[in-house]
């Protein structure tokens, strides 16, 4: 029995009642990472010494009777595109392989203030662009349930380390499903909050109007705990909501009887894996048995979500990633001497000049294929003559998608459907065909486009032994409702308590 078999809330109780010391928890977490992570590959960086020092400091202060923060002694893993002043922040890209931010993200500052222990940085698709973590330039992360399968993405490292019980809490980010889809693939709980709920300051942007940081944990209760510590207004983020943060742990204790749930029938009856269809349908019976009122509901424009998303996200990304040009930080391609240049390179140099050459070589070498594809797509869609047909059109459809949600939430308190059309796929299965990979985001992207919260919880396991995710969505700032539904479901079932087979 490992200390990390306990949930985050249980560990916190043990810490607060002085039954265990933070140093024990952190040591246990570090040793599990050391022993169990090599075949999984969730961590890009382990903050071994820093984490131990922070844990000892918490223990010392608790011993002296000094106040400690709300997460004092709990290890938290961070997706490696959240800036940390004391650890590298790479975005799993060659471009930032040696980047050390001179500042902390707001969520990091809040976690430090809560005395959480920042245990390390987890792998992701390069710059969060992908749905399998295969586009990481630095490392492969495997699904703990079946190592031939992807963990999902882009927050694949955070999902895998939670599923392997390496840490109790992790942060991921979700731009089109990047928390919820890996949570579904790895059998854990992942919440994408309402846009503006958690500060983006220090989150390295992929698509600024869609990105949101959220908790990835083993249960809805633990997610409530982590959201509580990270949510709230930040004056350094102009898109941060100045809306009071409710008591999430109190909210989840409420019964769900009488809550109205809209079943996304079209999604469920579309081309989803039959096992997923069955598991999600069974989940609705559970919720009904707990008193929830279910009705079918339709989001007519959500079928256009992927097309809309794959215009808006690449457009914003093409601009957000322009800063990686080898001048102020990050990778720079070496300047070749005249003798080393090929004839065509010399000709290019002649026509473009050394600076443009440096830019192009740096970006060509520093970015991987998927990142380049999205930069190209976004640059194309924003360029002269295409703006109206692509970007502006997508912005208009985006509003229609949002209006669908607004209409739905006049009738129901939450929406229910599958997170993904299939369970975790095999490595290489989709990476050669970008469009097939993108289509896997069909059920998750609409929440990002609309800026609304979505939550993924485990609701079954396929005969092959791969987890299945249940998708709960809600209106603006309805995180309490979603967590409450999820918690009630987890009180009634044990899917969230299932662990991957140990090899």
């Amino acid at each position, binding site marked *: 029995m490992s200390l990390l078999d306990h949930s985050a809330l249980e560990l916190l109780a043990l810490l607060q009642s002085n039954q265990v010391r933070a140093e024990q928890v952190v040591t246990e977490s570090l040793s599990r990472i050391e022993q169990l992570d090599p075949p999984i590959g969730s961590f890009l960086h382990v903050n071994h010494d820093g984490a131990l020092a922070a844990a000892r400091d918490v223990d010392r202060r608790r011993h002296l009777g000094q106040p400690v923060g709300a997460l004092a002694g709990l290890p938290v893993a961070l997706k490696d595109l959240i800036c940390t002043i004391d650890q590298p922040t790479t975005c799993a890209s060659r471009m930032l392989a040696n980047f050390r931010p001179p500042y902390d993200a707001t969520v990091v500052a809040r976690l430090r203030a809560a005395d959480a222990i920042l245990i390390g940085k987890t792998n992701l698709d390069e710059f969060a662009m992908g749905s399998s973590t295969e586009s990481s330039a630095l490392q492969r992360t495997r699904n703990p349930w079946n190592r031939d399968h992807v963990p999902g993405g882009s927050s694949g490292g955070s999902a895998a380390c939670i599923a392997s019980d390496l840490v109790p809490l992790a942060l991921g980010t979700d731009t089109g499903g990047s928390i919820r889809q890996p949570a579904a693939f790895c059998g854990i709980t992942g919440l994408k909050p309402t846009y503006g709920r958690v500060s983006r300051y220090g989150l390295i942007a992929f698509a600024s109007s869609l990105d949101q940081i959220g908790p990835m944990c083993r249960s809805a209760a633990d997610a409530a705990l982590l959201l509580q510590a990270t949510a709230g207004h930040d004056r350094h983020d102009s898109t941060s909501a100045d809306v009071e943060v409710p008591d999430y742990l109190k909210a989840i204790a409420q019964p769900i009887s009488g809550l109205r749930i809209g079943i996304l029938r079209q999604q469920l009856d579309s081309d989803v894996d039959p096992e997923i269809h069955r598991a999600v349908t069974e989940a609705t019976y559970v919720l009904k048995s707990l008193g929830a009122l279910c009705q079918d509901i339709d989001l007519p424009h959500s079928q256009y979500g992927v097309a809309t998303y794959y215009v808006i996200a690449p457009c914003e990304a093409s601009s957000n990633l*322009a800063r990686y040009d080898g001048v102020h930080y990050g990778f720079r391609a070496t300047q070749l001497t005249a003798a080393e240049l090929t004839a065509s390179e010399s000709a290019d140099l002649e026509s473009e000049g050394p600076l443009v050459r440096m830019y192009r070589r740096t970006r060509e070498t520093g970015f991987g294929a998927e990142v380049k594809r999205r930069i190209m797509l976004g640059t194309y869609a924003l360029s002269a003559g295409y703006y109206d047909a692509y970007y502006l059109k997508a912005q208009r459809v985006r509003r229609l998608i949002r209006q669908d949600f607004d209409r739905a939430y006049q009738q129901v308190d939450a929406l229910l459907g599958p997170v993904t059309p299939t369970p975790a796929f095999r490595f290489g299965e989709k990476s050669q065909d970008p469009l097939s990979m993108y289509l896997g985001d069909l059920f998750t992207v609409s929440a990002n486009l609309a800026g609304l919260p979505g939550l993924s919880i485990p609701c079954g396991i396929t005969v092959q032994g791969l987890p299945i995710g249940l998708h709960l969505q809600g209106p603006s700032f309805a995180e309490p409702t979603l967590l409450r539904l999820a918690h009630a479901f987890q009180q009634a079932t044990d899917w969230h308590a299932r662990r991957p087979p140990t090899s």
Partner: protein
Amino acid sequence: MTPPPTSTPPPVGAVRPYTVIVGLEVHVQLATHTKLFCRCPVKFGAPPNTQTCPVCIGLPGALPVLNETAYYLSVVTALALNCEIPAYTKWDRKNYYYPDLPKGYQISQFDLPMSCNGWLDLSDAQGRCSNRRIRIIRAHLEEDAGKSMHDEIAGRADTRIDLNRTGTPLLEIVSQPDLRSSAEAKAYLTELKLLLTYLGVSDCNMQEGSLRVDANVNLHIPVGSGTPEEIIETPIVEIKNMNSFRAVERALDFEVDRQYREWQATGKQKGEMPKQTRGWDDIHEVTKPQRSKEESSDYRYFPDPDLVPVTTTTDQLEAIRSTLKELPAALRLRLITDYGVTPYDADVIVNQGRTLADYFLAVADQCGDGKQACNWVTQEVLRSMKEGNLTIESFPIPSLELGRLIQSVQAGKLPRSRAKEVFGVMLEQILDLDTTLSRLGIQAVDSGALTDLGRELLAANPKVVADVQAGKEQAIGALVGQAKKSNPNVDPGVMRQILLDLIRQSAG
């Protein structure tokens, strides 16, 4: 290197066979403490790369937050330029690569700028240009880029980048192509700069880059003899890198002449070649073509997702409008109507800046005579400032003291003939009026004492009395001299009149 021009431009005043069409884009640094989207200071002259933060160097993850004061100052300026302020404005990204632009885009305003459709009236009483209304297309807020320093031998050495300036708030004011000569362009810039400094929205220091000007210029050339005349337009050229108003004037003069010669040589018209950018070379006094970037026009503007729109209500605008300071044009009018100053002098005073105008107003209010105050300020004060290389802020005679000096003259307490002497001593020795008067032994002489003195002198000089009575009035001068010798405070004009009156009385 481009050779210096071979043909000389037509002499000033000569009839030119074309109309000059000029529009100006002026970038003004707003007088804030911090940058437009972060809280780094904007102090000029700091050591390189010491005024930056994650936001303005575009570090991954950093986010912009709009500077409240920068926005307020931009609204103040736009209102003073008679612009419409739309209820809704937003922020756009202008995407291009340059090493002093660390994010790879500039945050600017594209299709919904914070103001549009304004104007600035030119009314030059000094006669350098005619009265004109220059329309303003728009004024929008944007962030400045950093500074690139290139080595002498281009292509050989590294370029050095200083990002202290990056993110400094700029207001870009774009005029319609309403200007018809280099002199008008200069008058527009002069009036604009005056307005901005009166408003206190910018220090307009060109040496420090607080005011930068780009000009778009082409020619309309009438051809053929039929009516209406057929007009040929030459290709529009954008001139950059002009770092003084004088440079703007000279660059436009050069460019106008160059375009005319080029049209004569090639016949090329607008639309037959892409818009050209030329830089002004201050040393050789020529414009030179700048390296054109083939894709430079494709900036891929789109709304910045990191910044939210700004809305302004009519009430908010009226509240700001009510705090607007007096503008130069209004002050000129006030000097003319309330202070009896001539339009020419009103122009001279107002164009010296708000501090000198305030000095004048205080002098005039103290002495109660606008014309006299104007004479003293436009002549003695301005001349002394020029000679002593002084600013009005450091001028040794306070406005109230000068006002009292003028008052003393009017009251007869200070002989008019000695007023400039007193002014000079106050200036040189930095003394107040009373101390100066007593040091110079100037006291008011009452007219009774003067009459007594006159009687004494006339009694002692019967020959002079006889000469005057015989019609040789100038003989009185000798007695005036004697009077001044016996009392230096005697005003010669006053004494002369008293003596003549006494002679006339004795004769009658």
